[in-house]
């Protein structure tokens, strides 16, 4: 597999480590429940099709990426900086709250 790192260009998969689902959100704060944390740590969907997942460019720029990969074909539909995606999400959530 080849992953198009937004910083380094298309690189071999051996340079990356896989983590999993990019959609789970850590329950933050002191009042988070243990049940919510349990789900966050352990529960994952296993979709057949496009999947947003986290990859770490360990042998490259050390960026965490959100890679959208079709689990049936390994086709990579997109790869973006996880940090940028997270900030964008926070902006969106913040706007929603306001």
């Amino acid at each position, binding site marked *: *597999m*080849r992953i198009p790192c937004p910083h380094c260009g298309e690189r*071999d*998969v051996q340079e990356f*480590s896989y*983590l999993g689902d*990019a959609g789970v959100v*850590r*329950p*933050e*704060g*002191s009042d*988070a*429940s*243990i049940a919510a*944390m*349990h789900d*966050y*740590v352990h529960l994952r969907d296993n979709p057949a099709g496009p999947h947003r997942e*986290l990859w*770490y460019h*360990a042998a490259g720029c*050390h*960026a*965490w990426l959100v890679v959208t990969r079709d689990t049936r074909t*390994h*086709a*990579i539909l997109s790869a973006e*900086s*996880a*940090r*940028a995606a*997270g*900030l964008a999400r*926070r902006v969106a959530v913040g706007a929603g709250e306001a």
Partner: protein
Amino acid sequence: MALGRPAAALRNGVTTTGLRPLAPTPMQTHRLASGGFVDRSRPLPFVFDGRAMTGLAGDTLASALLANGVRLVGRSFKYHRPRGILSAGSEEPNALVELRAGARREPNTRATGIELFDGLVAESQNRWPSLHFDMLAINAWFSPFIKAGFYYKTFMWPASLWENLYEPLIRRAAGLGRAAGEEDPDHYEKAFAFCDVLVVGSGPAGLAAALAAGRGGARVILCEEDFALGGRLLSERKEVDGVEGHVWAARAVAELQSMPEVRILPRSTVFGAYDHGTYGAVERVADHLSVPPGHLPRQRGWRIVAKRCVLASGAIERPMVFAGNDLPGVMLAGAVRSYLNRFAVAPGRRAVVYTSGDDGWRTLVDLARAGVEVAALVDTRPAVDESLIALARSHDVRTVLGAEVLRARGFQSLAAVEIGASDGRIERIACDLLAMSNGWNPALHLTAHLGGRPRWDDSLAAFVPGTVPSGMAVAGAAAGKLALAEALADGVRLGSEAAAACGFAGPAIPVAAETERTGSAPLWRAPKRGANKAFVDLQNDVTVADVALAHREGFRAVEHLKRYTTLGMATDQGKTSNLPGLAIMAALSGRTIPEVGATVFRPPYTPVAIGALAGHHRGKDFRPTRRSPVHAWAQARGAVFVEAGLWLRQQYFPRAGERDWLETVKREVATVRGGVGLCDVSTLGKIDIQGADAAEFLERVYVNGWKSLAIGRARYGLMLREDGFVLDDGTTSRLGEEHFVMTTTTASAAKVMQHLEFCRQVLWPELDVQMTPVTEQWAQLAVAGPRSREALRAVVDNAHDLSNEAFPYLAAGEVTVGGGVPARLFRISFSGELAYELAVPASFGEAAAEAIMAAGAPFGIAPYGTEALSAMRIEKGHVAGNELNGQTTARDLGLGGMMSTKKDFVGRLMAKRSALVDPDRPMLAGFRPVRLSDRLRAGAHFLPLGAPASAEHDEGHMTSAAFSPTLGSWIGLGLIRRGAERVGERVRALDPVRGGDVEVEICSPVFVDPAGERLRG
């Protein structure tokens, strides 16, 4: 047997040039006087089964053996039946040999793919004691007992007999070749390449595609598994663009060689297609040399990344299935043409051609041209085109239509075939060569490696590529386009399309070739007679009877058929056997072939040596070695090194007269506890953390508090994984308001970095914090012992006050040493003594170590290694890697009190899970032997006194043990149920692996200076 020997064309001897007389060896009795792409001026001596023979440059081992009249080249896997050479390519199921001798011996090597070299030595396989007299051929007599399912049915129980009886027996009786059993003396390498268009195969379609793409300017890689380029153009007599096919091929190769962006890799098999245009190939760089020269690897494993791929891998001819079809002398018709035309070898003197298609008829022309008598041409079809009949007539060859070969006869080699005519008459025809063809299978393997399913094509009666990997196009025979003109046109079109897709539009110049007849009607009937001698899979000895048995017993789906009969599961992966097996199963069960199914193809296309995949990653180069910046200094000081992950760490520094490591370690500990010692701690992970939110960040990743840490102070920190278990520990120092430097354990440095980056980028992207691993930028030296301050005083520049008041325990800051060299000084202690760690830029490490040694000399300074370090940390009850094993919580380690209740941090909630706070969990405690002379060992399990040694009485285990020079006995740290609560209790520490069984007393894990007075002094 009457062998017509017409043959001015056949001649004895090899010295066609007459220049060089040869040693008396068997003659090349079957070499043609002229033609072929062998070099008659370069005879190559070789040895097969101890017999000296001679072949020619350009031969394969198979063609050289045939030239010498050798037909019997091996025994079969299960029945030890005599076997010869079936094919002329990598699909060969029979002619497997052990190539070379000694440490270079390579089993199961296909004679058809071995390029002959001077001094080649090969041996036949699966025969005992000799090829011609094989005792185990008696297996054949018992063949009813070794039929399909034999292994499952016979060797079911008792299980104990497997190891001692069945397996050794089966391995001896039914094995393939022997491995060398010695270390491979050659080296291998990995290579990486990127291109626009990868062309797989250099036959007519491949050459046409490479030319079209190359002319457009694309970066092209052309891989050919053979050592000669041209594919079937070398084996058939065909005209292309008005010249002989091989001339056209040579011109095409010359043009490709002139293109700077084209790389041609002969002797290179593309063995796998992987995701996103990645292909694996193995280049046999030096397999055609007896010993690779020092600068060359034997093989090179390529990883090729291609934007587009044109697969022009050709087609594999299908054998006919009839009784005795495994006898030496029964060959594929295309292979016979290849031996005649390319290698100038007549594989027999009197031939019968047996075909179900037009294509096979060409064979009679080539045989006749070479002077081989063609006794008959048998076609299974009742009628064929008149032009074919005329062709046979013009060569005076008798034709028998609508007939079948019922049985091949002969002892160790073909002597005759029995032909069954349509009217039921049976005729016996003497012959020593049967050239058979039952149509062709596109070599579509690479199209299926990513899950693509081949499609059945009724008009071709073959599977053709179905869905293919993205970026791949299939050209020529591999796509079912068997006629030459069609294959060439396909290559031109797909080559230029592939180049255009990469932005290199070029001219698609057509190539002209005559049309070919490709009509066929393959025969799939299961023979009625001799089914147990009619072989479907020659390499795994699977017969029609086995397929029939699988059918009777219900193993009718293709995957069941394979596993029950082992059909197609040998090293050739059924290249010649899968389809006949499917077809016979289809016939037996009244289904069509696609209804039975297609087998799944997986990489590798042909076997690949592990060496080619490993490259230089073997032995000590299996992984990189990391050396500390003061490695050479330590080496000069006599250090003994130990591997710690990738690192080489200094274990201890023996002195002359010390009897063993323990004596050395005792001395080193005594030096530190009584004076001063120096230890290299550069391998500890160091991470520089900066930013306005750096303190907030640490607050979230460590269990304890960081915001209160003053500038110029260090603190011990503990971090958890989100699931609540301990991830790592270490000290982190605050060098500025927004600047920290973290240390991690040696083993977990990369893991912690990845975790911190995850926290920073994914969990809390809004935090203003940056981090950089700086482990390799700093040499870090621990200076420990009551005299350490005095020793350091002479090294650290005078401007810096090192007094206990100015630089107390857990002080940290930037200093200069040696007159202005920037450094960092930390007053932290692993040993429990007054101690410092001095970090200097890596390139100053050795100078700093020497300066400290000189400054410490008056106080008896000595370097110490990880053993003494470990003994002292156990004396102090500090946890390390043995305790931070990924299964312990902060509470287990007695560090539960560090977990802040005033903030959120990674792992906080999950650490509260009921099982993780169970009071019965094993927790950290110290252990001392009741009898002081007893030795403790890490790994020993704790049992209540008097309890039997069984799992239900297991209470935990000893994680670390060391001899404590301070206490004068062995001491240990361990995890035991309820831990420190049980101080004073005695338990048994059982180490059955090393015979240890010691009564120990549970004690505090801190053995030395529990109040911590020394390190504050």
